[in-house]
């Protein structure tokens, strides 16, 4: 999809609003013809003998009224423009987030947080601005054509000689713009670097303070600021230099008119009214090259920005324009659709393989079988591929090979099939958001207080919630910073449970929990309508609670079966058990990054 096509798609999102904007802005811009004509009529009426021409006072009255009408149009066009532009920007942001949400790996690899910041802010703004900028150019162009025709009819020779230099300016501007684009890119780059550095600085504020490194960090910040200043000054100088060139060309053009009109005026062929009209029109006609120039600059910026937005997925522009149109089904609807395929009887994984491109580690030919109600734990040393298997299973990694069958039915795209309410995945380190605890657990699920409380209880988070100042309405701070690692893990568990999944997939079960909390979690999960659980773990208590244990080493399954059987038959399991038990001895602590008594906001 070409960039103009892309823009057209964006405009078509709200055609009537856009049409209203175009009409009103055109009326406003082309309406500028009126005062010029009126001024000419006024001077002509004034210089002719009294009573022989139009009444100059009447001309003034008509002109003032028409101008007031034109002002009203400007208000309308302003409102239409801002609403349209922000709805386009909203769509772009939405489409971008939607895309990122459907391509998790790409995000993790390609975008740092601050990169996201400048994409969602600057790039979206550039594209949004350009959807309305060409209309100004169009209106100015239409005005200029009519104005030039009117001037040609007054004095053809003079008009053609004056308008030519203006066209020359257009050429100069076109040539100079390539340079401006490069400076702009440099200044953007410098800006992105400053923002990234600032973000990192604030994220590690505590370390920097304790190390007494503020001075050095600030010095580096100054250096980056200086680089950015140089880039920005150069950028602004050339942009403004071009602008001022356009702007001043009117004075030069008027000077030329004065020079060339000297003869005709003394001969009476060119009136003072004609001079007034030229003076007035040339000012706005000279805006045309300026408008072309700045529209071009904006075009380039918008194109670069759009390409950068599209590059999030190495895709073309088509998705950016079309993605926002796709409706995401409501949670309720997707929950119902999620029941297709039947509730879990058995999940069968055969030959599942994934190799990490960077480390060449991963999992190869893994077979797993889980029946309804089972608690299966995958274990193994660090780097044995446990987490890889889980992530490839739920579609967070694109598997290289292998099949997944849900009740015997082949699952093509686990990323869209193995999701709630079939499967809920609990990551090792959950990412929480700066909102209430309730929002972090529910995330859109339509559950009542009792269901929420039940999920919290089963996740062994009830004691923590009771200790929070506002219970589930407590704000958890940026990225959940006010919660400890263990609390965050149990929030993620509650979040999964409140979705009532058939299968719970848990990476590194209870890793940040103390023994007592781990035991409480295991007990509560096992009672009642217990969900089927597939987890990775290195905790003896969790392994002991499992119906079956799957032992992995170097990416392959080396043994599986009940723990007792493995402990007597599998050398790998014996070795691991000894190691895990030794590790556990110093335990008790999880991580109490912040404690239940986090400061309230």
């Amino acid at each position: 999809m070409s960039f103009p096509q892309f823009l057209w798609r964006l405009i078509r999102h709200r055609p009537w609003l856009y049409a209203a904007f175009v009409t009103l802005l055109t009326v406003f811009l082309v309406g500028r013809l009126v005062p010029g004509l009126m001024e000419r009529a006024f001077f002509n009426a004034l210089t002719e003998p009294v009573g022989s021409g139009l009444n100059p006072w009447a001309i003034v009255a008509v002109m003032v009224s028409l101008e007031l009408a034109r002002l009203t149009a400007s208000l309308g066009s302003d409102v239409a423009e801002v609403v349209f532009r922000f709805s386009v920007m909203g769509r772009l942001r939405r489409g971008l987030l939607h895309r990122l949400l459907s391509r998790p790996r790409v995000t993790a690899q390609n975008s740092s947080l601050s990169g996201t910041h400048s994409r969602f802010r600057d790039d979206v703004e550039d594209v949004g601005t350009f959807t309305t900028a060409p209309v100004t150019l169009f209106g100015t162009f239409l005005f200029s054509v009519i104005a030039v025709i009117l001037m040609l009819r007054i004095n053809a020779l003079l008009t053609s000689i004056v308008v030519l230099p203006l066209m020359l300016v257009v050429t100069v501007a076109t040539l100079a713009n390539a340079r401006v684009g490069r400076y702009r890119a440099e200044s953007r780059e410098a800006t992105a670097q400053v923002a990234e550095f600032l973000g990192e600085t604030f994220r590690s504020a505590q370390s920097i303070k304790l190390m007494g490194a503020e001075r050095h960090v600030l010095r580096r910040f100054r250096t980056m600021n200086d680089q950015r200043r140089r880039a920005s000054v150069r950028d602004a100088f050339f942009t403004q230099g071009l602008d001022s060139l356009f702007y001043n060309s009117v004075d030069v053009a008027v000077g030329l008119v004065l020079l060339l009109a000297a003869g005709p005026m003394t001969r009476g062929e060119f009136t003072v009214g004609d001079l007034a009209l030229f003076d007035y029109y040339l000012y706005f006609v000279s805006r045309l090259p300026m408008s072309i120039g700045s529209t071009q600059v904006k075009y380039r910026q918008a194109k670069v920005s759009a390409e950068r937005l599209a590059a999030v997925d190495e895709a073309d522009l088509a998705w950016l324009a079309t993605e926002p149109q796709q409706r995401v089904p409501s949670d309720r609807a997707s929950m119902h659709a999620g029941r297709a395929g039947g509730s879990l009887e058995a999940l069968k994984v055969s030959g599942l393989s994934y190799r990490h491109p960077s480390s060449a580690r991963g999992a190869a030919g893994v077979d797993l079988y889980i029946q309804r109600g089972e608690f299966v734990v995958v274990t193994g040393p660090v780097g044995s591929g446990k987490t890889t298997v889980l992530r490839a299973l739920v579609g967070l990694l694109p598997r290289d090979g292998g099949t997944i069958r849900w009740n015997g039915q082949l699952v093509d795209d686990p990323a869209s099939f193995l999701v709630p309410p079939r499967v809920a995945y609990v990551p090792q380190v959950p990412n929480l958001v700066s909102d209430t605890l309730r929002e972090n657990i529910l995330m859109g699920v339509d559950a009542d207080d009792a269901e929420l409380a039940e999920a919290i209880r089963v996740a062994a988070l009830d004691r923590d919630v009771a200790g929070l100042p506002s219970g589930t309405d407590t704000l958890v701070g940026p990225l959940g910073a006010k919660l400890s690692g263990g609390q965050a893990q149990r929030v993620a568990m509650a979040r999964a449970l409140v979705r009532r999944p058939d299968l719970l997939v848990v990476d590194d079960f209870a890793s940040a929990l103390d023994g007592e909390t781990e035991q409480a979690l295991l007990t509560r999960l096992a009672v009642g309508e217990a969900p089927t659980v597939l987890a990775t773990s290195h905790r003896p208590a969790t392994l002991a609670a499992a119906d079956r244990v799957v032992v992995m080493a170097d990416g392959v399954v080396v043994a599986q079966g009940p723990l007792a059987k493995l402990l007597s038959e599998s050398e790998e399991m014996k070795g691991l058990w000894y190691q895990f038990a030794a590790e556990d001895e110093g335990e008790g602590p999880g991580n109490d990054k912040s404690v239940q008594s986090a400061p309230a906001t």
Partner: protein
Amino acid sequence: MTTTIDQAARAKDDADPRSRYWSLLFRYMRLERPRLAILGVLLLAATALQVLTPQLVRHYVDRAVSGSAVHTLMWVAGAYLLVALMLQVVRLASAYVGESAAWSMTNAMRVDLTSHCMGLDIRFHREHTAGELVERVDGDVTALAKFLSSAFLLILGNLLLIVGIFVSLFLTDARIGAVLLLYALCALAALLAIRSIATGPWTMAREVSGKLLGFVSERVAGIEDIRGNRAEGHVLRQLDELNGDLTRWQRTARVRTSLIFIVMHGTYLLGYGGALVVGGYLYREGLASIGTVYMIIAYTSYIYTPLNELRSQIQELQRANAGVRRVNELFAARPSITDGPGLAMSTEAPSVAFDSVSFRYADHLPMSLQDVSFSLGSGQVLGIMGRTGSGKTTVARLVTRIYDPVSGAVRIDGQDLRQARADDLRGRIGMVTQDVQLFHGTLRDNLTLFDPEVVDERIIAAIEQLGLREWYARLPDGLDTVLASGSDDLSAGEAQLLGVCRVLLREPALVILDEASSRLDHVTEQFLNRALRALAVGRTTIVIAHRPTTVSLVDQVLVLEDGRVVEHGPRESLLADPDSHLSRLMLQVSQEDFA
């Protein structure tokens, strides 16, 4: 400079907002006096040239009508062209000087703001996301830069131009000058009256915009969580709401700004109509030449153009207003930890003591630590253990004076930590946090935290001391190897190793290590144990132990439960006592072993 500005801000704290607003701007403008002086000269030149042009046209028209020789007219036209070209040069020069000055000023402001934020305690940083602070320190200040570099110049230049025009008008004809002055005063009064009607909505629009970007950053960081819980629809709907809010505030702000334009242009129309009528009347009565009428009309639009530009720059001014207000708000944030008279810190490893320390995070919250007392001798290693929420990290926060205790005292070498100045502790206490944040930059910068005085030999020595020689040898560019922030390349354990290396380079006498709770692979685990041993040599060390093997490295163990000390003593004697918490932990594990 940083501190002076900070102190000045503090002194101005009680002043009214308007004076604080201007004092903020003037403080930074003072830094750029030479450039601003040049700018002033350029502005005066531009004004003079602009005022001259309608006078030239008046001469031209009057001579054309009275039938002067063509070459006389040509001379006047030539002078007009020359003035136009000179204006071009002057404008370019002021664009360059103006931009340079604006960026220098706002860069100084960015540095001061960052420095100020770094001076605030962790309480502050927990309430504000990094994204939000970036938006303030960079976003708001950039709005200010735009204002200072263009809007400010235009406003000043335009005011000068208006003065120049009136001087010229009154010299030509006092009556006409009086009429136009009336118009200009009306326009100015209208401008001042409605100037600020859009400030509120602009502030809100910026705030919503910051909220929206913060929302997006967090959601992007949590993509896997969102997908795993099928919350895509929910998140997108929340985004839609924020987008809707933003559009509404932008619309309100824009409508208000448009109203300003309408009032300004309406006033101009009345002035313009008045000028035509008065000019026409004077001409008809033979009191003014046609060239003078022409000049009046030219001046009317000359007054309008600057007034109109003032109007359009009001938008920038309003954005800057909102920015300045938020910058001032940020400057007004005060740390809750204040400097005492100072501590005498020896270079020796200090002793640490908690003397009946109680602490809570806020008044309405239960105590996180209650009556905690213990002492740790110079050069000893203390391991703190306890369940989640037992207060381990709180102890670390009190030792590093991130917070002050509610009652009791934390003593370093017997002196109350409240007596300390921030500088006393700087570099004297080292802390390795659980999650070590890396900078997108070289390994060197990440280890020295940009301190240029740390020579490469020392860095490499530290790396080798931690047993990372082989790891270092594999790096493609040695110390110049670029690490990406938030990268997948390093595990939490590896990042902690870099954190230990950072601390080692500062050579603090007291070290706190909050061990990563995430699981480490065997190799990293061994490295960390070795690193911990290296770190503890000749230092007083506190380890918040998450790993069992750490226990063998400590001299003393402190076990916390619900903010109280349940056990404290030498590791050996605790292990010797079968009823101790530590022994029971061991027993529990050995029982599980044979389960």
